[in-house]
């Protein structure tokens, strides 16, 4: 009982961590993944994991993103531009679904408790740009 209580009464927050209670919104995660691809989606997801101090649990997201990114880039060079326009977006949505499954409880908490997410415009735009440029570079590398 004593041990149980001393564990419960150990602080979980620290003022010097610049801690934010919220993670980026589902909208930010969706739009970044949809337009920027798996790498961009992973940037947002892993930033959220950092805020939640869950990087130790969520690290497989990085591997999934890199794997899906390679697969989509390879398919784009073998199935023409139609795939690049349509199929890659389907892959992006699938990646968003994986991110959503990882962080579902936290998104739901924010929705239920009315927690305002941080503004994800700048980070989302930057991540999407990074994802698109990485995809173009990879396709060029494969083609050459």
């Amino acid at each position, binding site marked *: 009982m004593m041990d149980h209580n001393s564990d419960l009464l150990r602080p979980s927050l620290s003022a010097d961590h610049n801690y934010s209670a919220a993670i980026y919104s589902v909208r930010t995660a969706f739009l970044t993944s949809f337009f920027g691809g798996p790498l961009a989606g992973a940037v947002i997801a892993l930033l959220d994991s950092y805020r939640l101090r869950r990087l130790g649990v969520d690290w497989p997201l990085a591997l999934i993103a890199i794997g899906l990114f390679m697969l989509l880039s390879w398919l784009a060079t073998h199935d023409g531009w139609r795939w690049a326009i*349509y199929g890659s977006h389907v892959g992006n949505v699938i990646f968003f679904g994986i991110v959503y499954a990882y962080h579902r409880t936290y998104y739901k*908490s924010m929705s239920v408790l009315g927690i305002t997410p941080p503004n994800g415009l700048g980070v989302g735009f930057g991540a999407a740009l990074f994802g698109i440029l990485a995809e173009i570079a990879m396709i060029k590398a494969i083609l050459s």
Partner: protein
Amino acid sequence: MSNPEDRGPTLGVLLHQAHALIDRRRFAQARQILAAAALSHPDDPQLLYLTAFIDYSEGKLDDAEKTVQSVLLQNPEHYGGRTLRAELYEARNQYAQAELVWIELLRSYPEDANLYASYAELMMRTLHLDKAQRLMQEGLRLEPDHARCLYVAALLHIIQGRSSDPENEHLQRLVTQYPERIQTLLTLVVALNQRGDNQGALRVAQQLLRLRPDSPQFLNLVKELKFQTHWSLLPLYPMQRWGWAGAGVVTVIGIGVVNISKSQLTSNVATVIGVIWLAYVVYSWVWPQILRRLI
């Protein structure tokens, strides 16, 4: 809060009256009584605490903070003053400082279920859901029918459960034992909303607004639910019901149908399908914004 009876009959009666008025949120009248009592007992910690509580309830955080400091200067162990200090930290998003105050309080009152509930709420708000769960369980172990612990338990069940889960036992107990509490109705709104029953949630939210007509929070809640239940948003049901996951599925299906129609159907039919899809996408982005402004 400490017992007002031990402060002499006049002050005791005034404190009772002020308590009763604060419970009914009649803050202006409570302030008058507190001001009258302060003439004869200007430094009474309980009087100061109630004044700070009213300031906090009315959003005057700076005033509340100053008065709480006065309370704690006179009596550093004042229970109400310490809990209000934690609430003030939370109101200013200073969560780490608030946590330290809750922990100190729990060390002073290790059997107080209300403190476990307060700390659990903070952990929930900062997305430390496992710890919130354990704190709530400890609170319910100490007081199995504690209203605030049941409230936290019901919310955690909604957050962690799925819509197909069995009934929320804590919410049922909350509704049965504390049907008149604002927190009960609020939890009911959240539960109905999460189950997709927005019409039911709207009815309960309207009841909340009738109980607290001056609350901007409940007014916004009713507005939001009226928006979500508007007939013109019916084509967006998947997005409303399942959020961005629903949007993702609709997007995949839409792109798939447009793509297949280009290769399988005549160009005219494919063009019509493409235009309908485009119109749907534009409608899904533009109309909710317009409707929200209209409501």
